């Protein structure tokens, strides 16, 4: 029983008060902004939702990831680059689908993440899935299994630019 609880405590991490308050503030602000109605019932429901979300976030280990705030300033630049990649690969995939012969050459690629942290790896995996033509199938101990629609897409992935940029996001 004690082992069990220790494991869970380490998974959830230490919920520090400033982080919790910040999360509650963000949640409350977005509730007020999105709802736009300031009746007691709705404010009460909002307060309940905020507290429930914070508690569920704590249960899911949200406060374990302190790195999340640190990479916020670099996120817009990364998104801008990713947007270009998404646009290019979208055109590529759309052309491929519309060609009568449909020359697909599916390949599996194994990719090594350059980032140690879970947040960095999640960002990398999601970025790969987000761009059409590449889908992350499996993540295990920093190794990514990626399915590519074409061998050209696989080549671009092997050059490792996505992994480099995602790792740079954390300032490592």
């Amino acid at each position, binding site marked *: 029983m004690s082992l069990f609880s220790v494991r869970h405590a380490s998974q959830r991490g230490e919920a520090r008060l400033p982080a919790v308050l910040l999360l509650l503030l963000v949640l409350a602000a977005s509730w007020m902004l999105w709802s736009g109605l300031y009746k007691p019932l709705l404010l009460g429901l909002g307060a309940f939702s905020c507290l429930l979300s914070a508690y569920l976030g704590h249960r899911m280990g949200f406060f374990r990831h302190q790195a999340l705030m640190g990479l916020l300033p670099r996120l817009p630049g990364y998104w801008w680059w990713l947007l270009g990649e998404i646009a290019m690969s979208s055109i590529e995939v759309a052309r491929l689908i*519309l060609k009568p012969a449909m020359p697909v050459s599916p390949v599996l690629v194994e990719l090594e993440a350059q980032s140690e942290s879970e947040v960095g790896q999640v960002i990398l995996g999601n970025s790969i899935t987000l761009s059409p*033509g590449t*889908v992350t199938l499996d993540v295990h101990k920093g190794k990514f299994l990626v399915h590519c*629609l074409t061998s050209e897409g696989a080549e671009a992935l092997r050059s490792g630019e996505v992994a480099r940029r995602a790792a740079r996001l954390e300032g490592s």
Partner: protein
Amino acid sequence: MIDIGLDILSWVLLTLGGACVLIGGIGGLRLPDFYTRIHAASLTDTMATLLIFVGMMLQSGWSLATMKLFAIMLFLLLTGPTATYALANAALLSGLKPGDKGAQGKYGENVE
């Protein structure tokens, strides 16, 4: 004048977004197996979402609605890949190998 320009731009974006959804649908039908079909879905998931939401944001101008549209777009772009990963990973873990014969063809083919 600016209004007309914004209107044209937003309609171009919306049309392109609609085309992306259509092509994604065609791809879902044409591509040979499960893992390649996911790529067609990802076209609808990502590019169509971006184009349609930016088009709608241009229509709504500077208002709270634009903020809400932006937030919805962000949530879709963050949760979409996660759902795709869950789907692809579940297929992989349940033994559907990429490039496998079992991954393609009509329903009922290659049933062991």
